[in-house]
């Protein structure tokens, strides 16, 4: 049943080839513009660790058969809440960061449970429902941010002292704690050791999780619910667990992102964050099959490097906006290709 569709096929790798081609094009242009190679390599490593966890958070839901998690804003809101609590308690440095992650995980479990219950009701059409659950959750959170009873003035509007700022600076709290942990410079490339080790550990955790019997039960659920049910797996429960796991990892992901970026961005900032994460996983080669950790790492690296390169290239172009527009085109084109690819496969199976 499985191997016939999973052999090495060119059309399954088109997104990857496409993004590599785009990357080569950008790299060529960047080199001609004499951009600092070492700085950009270091930057691409930072962006890998920074965005990798968010992309990794899609894996459990993909494997349990709940589709691409376009409701990532739910997970991100949990993470933002965790960080705001930590900043409100004026927790600093690494302990502050881990406290934020702890709060984020708690919020992630609660929200993930609710979110998973919703997704169990819309089986087969999770992606569209998730996207709008995510969008509407952002506006619910906007209410919360505007009225939340936080007290640290660093987080509130300077005038009036009510409601959260759209961007909260983390300098003095936990900005860059992972990035600077054990970082070193080699041949002009600054390696953010702590960030990469943290990302690596999470990847290892997810990898090992899907080798346990629980993880295998989830994969079985994603492959075929009727078979899983016959094998005595409680399908609804597995799906709920998968969604909770995705939400918790996503909540951690935004903490990692924010500490690297240096700001907590509230309100509408996370509205569209699900889409780049989805195309990163797809660009890594997860098409019509299981999502693997290596898809996440490879995809995020390729995808984020296009960000790093398009900056300097844009400045060399006559129309600087073009680099960003083309990057968006590639990003969403990958998702569209994946939908069409899988639809065509379903159609062939049905015929």
């Amino acid at each position, binding site marked *: 049943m499985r191997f016939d569709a999973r052999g090495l096929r060119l059309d399954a790798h088109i997104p990857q080839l496409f993004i590599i081609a785009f990357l080569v094009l950008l790299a060529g242009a960047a080199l001609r513009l004499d951009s600092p190679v070492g700085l950009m390599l270091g930057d691409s490593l930072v962006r890998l660790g920074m965005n990798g966890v968010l992309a990794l958070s899609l894996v459990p839901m993909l494997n349990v058969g709940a589709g691409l998690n376009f409701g990532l804003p739910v997970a991100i809101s949990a993470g933002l809440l965790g960080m705001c609590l930590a900043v409100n308690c004026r927790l600093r440095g690494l302990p502050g960061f881990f406290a934020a992650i702890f709060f984020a995980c708690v919020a992630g479990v609660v929200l993930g449970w609710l979110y998973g219950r919703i997704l169990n009701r*819309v089986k087969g059409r999770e992606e569209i429902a998730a996207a709008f659950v995510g969008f*509407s959750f952002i506006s619910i959170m906007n209410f919360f941010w505007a009225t939340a009873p936080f007290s640290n003035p660093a987080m509130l509007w300077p005038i009036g002292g009510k409601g959260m700022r759209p961007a909260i600076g983390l300098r003095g709290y936990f900005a860059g704690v992972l990035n600077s942990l054990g970082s070193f410079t080699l041949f002009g490339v600054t390696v953010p050791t702590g960030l990469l080790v943290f990302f690596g550990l999470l990847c290892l955790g997810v990898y090992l999780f899907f080798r346990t019997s629980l993880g295998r039960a989830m994969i079985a659920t994603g492959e075929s619910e009727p078979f899983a049910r016959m094998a005595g797996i409680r399908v609804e429960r597995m799906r709920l667990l998968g969604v909770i796991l995705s939400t918790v990892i996503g909540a951690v992901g935004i903490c990692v992102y924010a500490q690297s970026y240096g700001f907590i961005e509230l309100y509408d900032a996370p509205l569209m964050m699900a889409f780049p994460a989805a195309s990163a996983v797809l660009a890594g080669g997860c098409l019509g099959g299981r999502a693997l950790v290596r898809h996440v790492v490879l995809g995020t690296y390729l995808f984020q490097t296009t960000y790093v390169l398009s900056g300097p290239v844009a400045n060399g172009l*006559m129309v600087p906006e073009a680099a960003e527009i083309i990057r968006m085109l590639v990003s969403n084109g990958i998702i569209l290709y994946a939908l069409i690819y899988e639809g065509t496969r379903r159609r062939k199976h049905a015929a």
Partner: protein
Amino acid sequence: MRRNLVPAVFLVLCLLGTYYSRMGASFVAGEIVTRFIRDGVLTLSLVIPVAAGMGLNFAMVVGSMCAQCGLVMAVDYQVSGPAGLALILAVGLPLSILTGWLIGLCMNRVKGKEMIASIIIGFVATSVYQLVFMTGYGTVITPHNRDMMLSRGVGVRNMIDLAPFRNIVDRLWVVDICGVELPVFMILAVLAVACAVWLVLHSRLGRHFRAVAESGRKARLSGIDVDAVRIKAMILSTMLACLGQVIYAQNIGMLNVYTAHLNSDVFACASLLAGGATIYTAKVRHALLGVLLFHGLFIVSPQAGQNLFSNAALGEYFRSFVAYGAIAFALIMNIRRENLESAGRGR
């Protein structure tokens, strides 16, 4: 009873909002009339895809973009008045037939996931569209009107003044009733489009739409070319969206070249659902009623938020929550019922 629940909730929210916003009834009524003629056709463009079983067509933004291509072209060649309007439609409608056909081809390959695909199609099309106007104009396409270009000579300005087209059809046959201006011509025009959609739905093609929506397999057995019918639904929807955006833009009088079409899909979908449609059934009256209710709420909620919580931003958030939340709620409820029904049939 249950069918009218959503419109009833919206009606109550509208009335409460109007009460707390302390805006005059005639002001609110005037605004609602404006929104009705501005957004009516855009909302009507969603009825046909739902009837054909393809769900909410978020790719209608592509139709809006086709209209904007026509608008930019008309400004570029400085053709104003009715001739300009004709040019806009002459550019926009063929373009929307072409793009609607392409969207239909995509939709036939993503059966069961049409809605999420239509969102992504909108994003991809937006990038292509922005690329054309940002880099194409001034390089490949020679502009004739320097005023609409950025000072660097490449790329169209963000904002284009549509003064030559502003309210060109809106000001026809305006009647004043108790301080509310009624642009009779435009109201009739929107109703005429509504009638046209109704006629399509009750024609042979409309029966085919319903057959395809009911069961693709049965429709195929009775000799209907399912894929062709679905493509026709997308073409009609895109054309109506194009027409709707022309009306919208000439009413506003300014064109935000790169962003004017964004969100038109979300507002149109939320309006349709507010009128009582589901993602499986939509009628013309749902669209007409929904525009009134949804935009009524849209007009009053910021001021109501200001008066109730002394914070206008809360009204804004409530607005976006209503738009996104109405769609999320409808999706969850409708898909759940569909799943329960199909599980019942399977047993």
